[in-house]
């Protein structure tokens, strides 16, 4: 947010261009397994960008992100598929995103008024209510066993392994390769829009609401409306993410969209660095890829005979959970800026480097009793 004027010129654009070229070239070299991981990571990144707008940008804690992902996923599957109206896939995708936004809007009587932990637990309710609906609305969701997802087609080009057959530079382009580019395009769109929002007028208003609702209101920001709007926008990103996840899975089941998924998304934005778009993407890549990579290399990694396990070994999934639980604790404790904060320049002088820096030194000492600013100072970085 610190820079509104976009940096242009070859030197600023070069790293981005290089990254884009690299990402576009990857399907030519990677096997499908890695492309799938990448696809999941890109889908998760879009959702994380949305949650980051809400939690990092506005300071609202949400545990309901999985619900909005589910709305997008089932919304797309139903709108584009059978049973369902069977709309053209791009239209179904757009409508699924809007549907998630509407779901977020319907929650606005709560999200506009309820604050802090109350909001956190209220959003928890969304996950359970959503799960209940997914199990019971069998006509739409297929119930416990879920439903298949119609493949994405754009102007007659199908994002599957056939129709038309395609190979580029001798590499056959199957579903993974094709969806990779779809994911890349959607992630690019999400990144671009979220960055603009955070740096623009709405982002400033949201940051003001986060730092002090009273001050924001006095400066002319309609607080409740912006709190709700943040929810709607964040839900729309979640909807897009959910639809992409549905496309990657080709089949969706209610149990996937549980509380664990919501917590995964919180972990992504915290690990990446609250308030930063790049951080959300980095966090999403880490959280998504970690268990899959560990599974892939389970046989080479010294995991199976972990000591002190009472004879039972630690599986790759568990190892991933340990790593990631520990990462949350350690990052918050020692590097509250997240991955982005670590990579980025060292904290500028005068800027609070870590929340711990202003914490009471001992029992009883008031937390910087006369703190001149009431901003909660999430270790938030501007996006880049």
């Amino acid at each position, binding site marked *: 947010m610190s820079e509104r004027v976009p940096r242009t010129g070859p030197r600023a654009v070069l790293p981005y261009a290089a990254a884009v070229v690299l990402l576009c070239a990857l399907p030519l070299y990677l096997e499908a397994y890695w492309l799938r991981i990448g696809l999941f990571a890109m889908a998760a990144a879009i959702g994380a960008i949305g949650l980051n707008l809400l939690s990092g940008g506005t300071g609202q804690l949400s545990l309901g992100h999985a619900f909005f992902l589910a709305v997008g996923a089932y919304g797309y599957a139903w709108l584009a598929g059978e049973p369902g109206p069977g709309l053209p896939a791009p239209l179904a995708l757009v409508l699924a995103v809007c549907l998630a936004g509407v779901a977020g809007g319907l929650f606005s009587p709560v999200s506009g008024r309820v604050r802090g932990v*109350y909001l956190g*637990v209220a959003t928890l309710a969304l996950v359970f209510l959503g799960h209940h609906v997914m199990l019971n609305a069998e006509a739409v969701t297929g119930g416990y066993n879920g439903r298949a997802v119609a493949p994405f087609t754009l102007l007659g080009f199908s994002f599957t392994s056939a129709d038309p057959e395609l190979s580029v530079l001798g590499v056959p382009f199957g579903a993974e390769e094709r969806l990779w580019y779809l994911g890349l395009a959607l992630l690019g769109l999400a990144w671009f829009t979220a960055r603009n929002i955070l740096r623009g007028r709405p982002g400033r208003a949201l940051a003001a609401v986060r730092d002090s609702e009273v001050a924001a209101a006095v400066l002319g920001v309609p607080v409740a409306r912006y709190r709700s709007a943040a929810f709607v926008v964040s839900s729309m990103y979640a909807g897009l993410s959910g639809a992409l996840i549905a496309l990657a899975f080709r089949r969706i089941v209610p149990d996937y969209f549980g509380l664990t998924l919501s917590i995964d998304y919180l972990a992504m934005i915290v690990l990446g660095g609250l308030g930063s778009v790049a951080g959300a993407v980095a966090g999403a890549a880490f959280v998504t890829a970690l268990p899959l990579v560990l599974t892939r290399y389970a046989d080479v990694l010294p995991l199976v005979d972990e000591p002190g396990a009472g004879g039972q070994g630690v599986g790759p999934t568990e190892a991933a959970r340990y790593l990631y639980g520990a990462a949350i604790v350690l990052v*918050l404790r020692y590097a509250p800026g997240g991955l982005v904060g670590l990579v980025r320049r060292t904290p500028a002088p005068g800027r609070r480097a870590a*929340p*711990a820096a202003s914490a009471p030194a*001992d029992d009883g000492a008031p937390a910087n009793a006369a703190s001149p600013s009431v901003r*909660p100072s999430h270790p938030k970085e501007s996006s880049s």
Partner: protein
Amino acid sequence: MTTALDILLNGLALGSVYALVALGFVIIFKASGVMNFAQGSLLLLGGYLTAVLHEELGFLPALLLAVAATALVAGLVDRVLLRGMDPRHHHILTIMTIGVDILLLTELARRIGGDLLTLGDPWGNDVLTLAGVTVPTSRVASITVSVLVIGTVFAAFRHTDWGLSLRAASEDQEAAALMGVRLGRVRTLAWALAGALAALAALFLTAFPAPGLERTTGQIALKAFPAAILGGMASPPGALLGSLLIGVTEALAAGYQSELSALGRGLGDVAPYLVMIVVLLVRPHGLLGTKEAVRV
């Protein structure tokens, strides 16, 4: 055959267990402004320890040891992890407890695996017949012990230095510190007490007619969340009220399942959340909660 009285009793028993967990939430929230997401895994820890210790030590020593150990772990979480972090960053601290929960839960779930553990409680599947109603002894024990424990905690709020300090700290951390309240100690004690309550709740959650301790038992804490919120996060009586409300709601929804079939199967599991949302729509700070002071 279920009767209204059975359902009510069921609900009260359930509510009394929720109250133990919800009270833990409230105590921690009052002391540190944090929603403790690790409460479920602390509960599981207490249950697990009781389960593995009771055959060697006997039930009561095992329970006491498990309660003490869980309190210790909870206290350590506060001392080692949360201490020194800026207490105003509630979100950060709350997410940190999620990290702690993941670590504890993964380890416990791995140890428990697919097993169903018994805690060796003395009530087994005995039943009592009171005024023509047959109830499991464990339910009676659950209600009795919860009432006693909660009564003691309430008395502690009112009459001990710790209780006074806790109330002062939750009103205004700064002022309390200036008046000589040792916030750190008050907070650690609060965490330990919440841990002890969770361990105790594990016992009643797994006693008859529940099958025993599973790796998923800790998820019960997720229902104590709405109980605590619904009553007003900073209000211990609110937690009690909310817990009973949630317990009875859940029992009613489960008991009249067939009549409510239009709303779908498994309504008992989501009814608490519906009730909470309705309450929050009317009172955004819970039934007995107070609006936070406006701070600029």
